[in-house]
């Protein structure tokens, strides 16, 4: 079986009789089994995927199949699916089964997608290397010695290793785009509020967005189009109409693109990535696009303010995991106090505990204004400046990550070093704008390098359209 780039290829193949959903599912099941060592899947819904494939094949035959018939999808382990376990890769949700499905899952199933399993991620999506998971790190299919990135490491690796066609991830500060860049796939973070968060286990509610990791813009656009749109179960979801992203065409006209001076001059940026990036800028200019440098004087405060705000929200969002109601309860607990203390101490990993502590601290009386209020102000400044830039430019272009995938185990000593991995990605979450990472290059060590394209809020269609142009330039 070939590694299909897009659903349309699959559909053609099914149509011509050379494949079927059933054989596709068999193919993926076999590959998943073969690549167990990459530690990508936490659970494979084998029987369910097989029987569903059969049904979708029948529907395809009958001509009644939905738009995602033939697409085999993996879910990040923080997206709820009724009757299935979901753990956010945390011990604290050991054995927990969801009573309901996330809105995105409902929408995928309605269009006849086949959900094949749930994949590894950083615990509660907190991490940039998929090393905080209770199930251990995901290995990068491009080089198993290196990390897959995080937090949607399993999602990126699953697509890169062709263990599914598309995977859903979630992105709070780069958790879709950074692993996509590390694994060499496309990762899309939609505008905040574009996709319902109902059924996504919250990390930082005002940042979290679900989005696809895919092999082609076409697939990423189609899946985004289907999962996007207002949801009565998420009152923060936007009622701005969803346009047909999947029909986005390569733009014919010339575009205005900004890149941010401070970002490119950052000493942490790997020279090879910088070189590729600058080359892209000159190529685009050569094609007649306007590419200009813009100032963005908040680079130093962008990561700290992101961590203050997200940990504050996380400290509250994760309070519900208390051992009293569901999930892990310490066997040594004997009263309510020890149930809380022991269950949380034993159930959460180090990184999650660190963030809960940090978030609790920044919200404490006496420190609130110095941290939380200040970080909110910084967020406002970042939003305003970003909006200003995007008033004059169609897109902002920047590297997705300052480096390529690093070796497993090397960066987990000092958390602040790992936090700097997010330097280019947190911007879009702080500003709430859509951003996509495209696997445009390879390093001298043959590791993928991503470039990131950002647009104004709800300009997903434009983003996909220009991404097609960039992906074409790669070929």
């Amino acid at each position, binding site marked *: 079986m070939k590694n299909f780039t897009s659903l349309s290829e699959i559909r053609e193949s099914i149509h011509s009789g050379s494949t079927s959903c059933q054989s596709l599912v068999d193919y993926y099941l076999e590959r998943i089994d073969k690549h167990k060592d990459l530690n990508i899947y936490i659970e494979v819904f084998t029987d369910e995927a097989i029987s569903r494939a059969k049904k979708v094949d029948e529907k395809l035959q009958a001509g009644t199949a939905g738009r995602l018939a033939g697409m085999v999808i993996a879910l990040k382990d923080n997206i709820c699916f009724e009757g299935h376990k979901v753990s956010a890769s945390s011990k604290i949700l050991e054995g927990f089964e969801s009573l309901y499905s996330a809105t995105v899952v409902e929408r995928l199933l309605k269009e006849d997608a086949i959900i094949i399993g749930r994949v590894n991620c950083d615990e509660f999506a907190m991490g940039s290397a998929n090393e905080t998971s209770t199930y251990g790190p995901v290995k990068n299919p491009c080089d198993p010695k290196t990390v897959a990135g995080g937090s949607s490491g399993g999602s990126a690796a699953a697509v890169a290793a062709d263990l599914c066609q598309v995977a859903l991830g979630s992105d709070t500060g780069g958790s879709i785009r950074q692993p996509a860049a590390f694994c060499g796939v496309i990762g899309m973070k939609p505008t905040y509020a574009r996709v319902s968060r109902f059924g996504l286990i919250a990390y*930082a509610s005002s940042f979290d967005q679900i989005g696809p990791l895919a092999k082609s813009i076409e697939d990423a656009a189609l899946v985004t189009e289907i999962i996007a749109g207002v949801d009565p179960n998420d009152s923060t979801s936007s009622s701005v109409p969803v346009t047909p992203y999947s029909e986005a065409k390569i733009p014919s006209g010339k575009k205005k693109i900004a890149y941010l001076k401070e970002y490119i001059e950052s000493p942490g940026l790997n020279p090879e990535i910088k070189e590729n990036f600058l080359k892209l800028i000159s190529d685009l200019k050569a094609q007649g696009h306007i590419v200009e440098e813009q100032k963005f004087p908040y680079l130093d405060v962008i990561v700290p303010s992101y961590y203050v705000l997200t940990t504050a929200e996380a400290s509250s969002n994760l309070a519900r995991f208390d051992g009293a109601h569901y999930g892990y309860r310490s066997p040594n607990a004997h009263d309510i106090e020890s149930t809380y203390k022991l269950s949380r101490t034993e159930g959460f990993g180090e990184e999650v505990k660190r963030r809960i502590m940090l978030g609790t601290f920044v919200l404490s009386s006496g420190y609130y204004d110095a941290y939380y209020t200040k970080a909110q102000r910084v967020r406002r400044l970042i939003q305003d400046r970003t909006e200003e830039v995007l008033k004059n430019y169609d897109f902002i272009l920047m590297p997705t990550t300052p480096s390529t995938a690093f070796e497993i185990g090397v960066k987990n000593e000092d958390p602040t070093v790992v936090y700097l991995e997010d330097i280019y990605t947190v911007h879009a979450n702080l500003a709430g704008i859509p951003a996509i990472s495209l696997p445009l290059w390879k390093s001298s060590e043959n590791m993928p390098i991503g470039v990131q394209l950002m647009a104004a809020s709800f300009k997903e269609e434009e983003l996909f359209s220009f991404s097609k142009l960039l992906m074409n330039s790669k070929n």
Partner: protein
Amino acid sequence: MSIDYNKYETVIGLEIHVQLNTLSKTYCSDSTKYGAAPNTHISPVSLGHPGTLPVANSKVIEYAVRLGIALNCTIRERNEYARKNYFYADLPKGYQITQDKTPICDGGFVNVTDKNGDPKKIELTRIHMEEDAGKSIHDIDPFDSLIDLNRAGVPLLEIVSEPVLRSGEEAYSFISEVRKLVRYLDICDGNMEEGSMRCDANISVRLKGDTELRNRVEVKNMNSMRNVQKAIELESKRQIGVYENGGEVDQETRNYNAAKNETSILRSKEDAHDYRYFPEPDLSPILIQQDYIKKIKSTLPALPEELFSKYTKEFGLSDYDARNLTETKAIALYYDEISNHTKEYKMAANIVMGPLKSHLNDKAIEIGEFNLSASRISEMIQLIKDGKIANSKANKELFPLMVKSPDVTVQKLAEENHLIQESDSDALLEFVQQAIAKFPDKAEAYKNGKKNLLGLFMGEVMKLSRGKADPKVTNQMIREELEK
């Protein structure tokens, strides 16, 4: 050493939690019905399951606006929600969704009568919307505490008063006004025993004339208005005792025990929670437009104060009668309905407060279960007014018949039961003449000055008319006949 309590004044601010009688919960569609089997009115949202999100119930906002208008508050245009973070076994999310810096209502006031019977305006600080927690039950299972989450997420409004109350009595009066109002507005049943209205009191004392506030103590767990009053009186005395013995009152939270009528420490200042409030990121701010407020205003029922002033000023009732009638909404509405059919306002008030209320008391029913229409009462009033039945007879005999046969006109009931006074003068004259004819010697004696014989003839006429003769008219007629 005896303590002079009169040197001190008590300063009280109240926090009243009003549980709203909406059909569904604050942030999800679970039922709010009281008394269901434990953990049956729940859903992933109210269980705080991972990935769930709150969706604001618009009825809660409507009810808050209703109360805000009725309490003369300023309604806030942009309402944000906030999270109040604390761990509690019956708080499944580990935080309560409430409002912090932007309460839906600011200011406002409630008029009460102070202990001298004089009117006093009690200013409010704010009213905000929040959700209730579940219930922990410690007395069913001998080993474990049980949690019932039916109540988790039921909507509450918290009314916070300024520290302007000065006695337990005033606090009682304030709560009873608030309770009356929420019942009029039909947003809460006001039942403190069942917990649909709960009250915490912040109490401090100071020397009379002082302006500075001293440390306050929050007293919780008073589940009746009378207990609030008692707890305040108790706590005030305790604090005065502490100061008079040279001590200091600590800022703390105390629990009231009604059975023992004592308070005991629940949390010291050091143990006070840091709730780490921050804006709730899962709910968009709610914008309340002036048009919306106007619309709500136009649908508000008549409120007790309005009715009171209508009854005293337009109907000429005494303050006492008007207060009595407006005490409960249903009674007031019933009276109001009678007043649409008759102008005999005082007579109507007497009937409502007299035979009607005692009937309700006897049967232990609410007026909602009373099946006699207000217009029947006005028919009864008409009969009295026309002199067809004496007032006392109407109340004692006719009224119970009316209750028994609410579908029959009062006129007909009175006739069938021979309660109509004979004021038809021809018929009456005949009875009078018969009576005189029966006792010719007595008639003669009367004419000769034995005026006290009138009673004899009266009795005879009453006998003949079977009690229907109007005594006043009869009396007159007998005299006339005898003196001819």
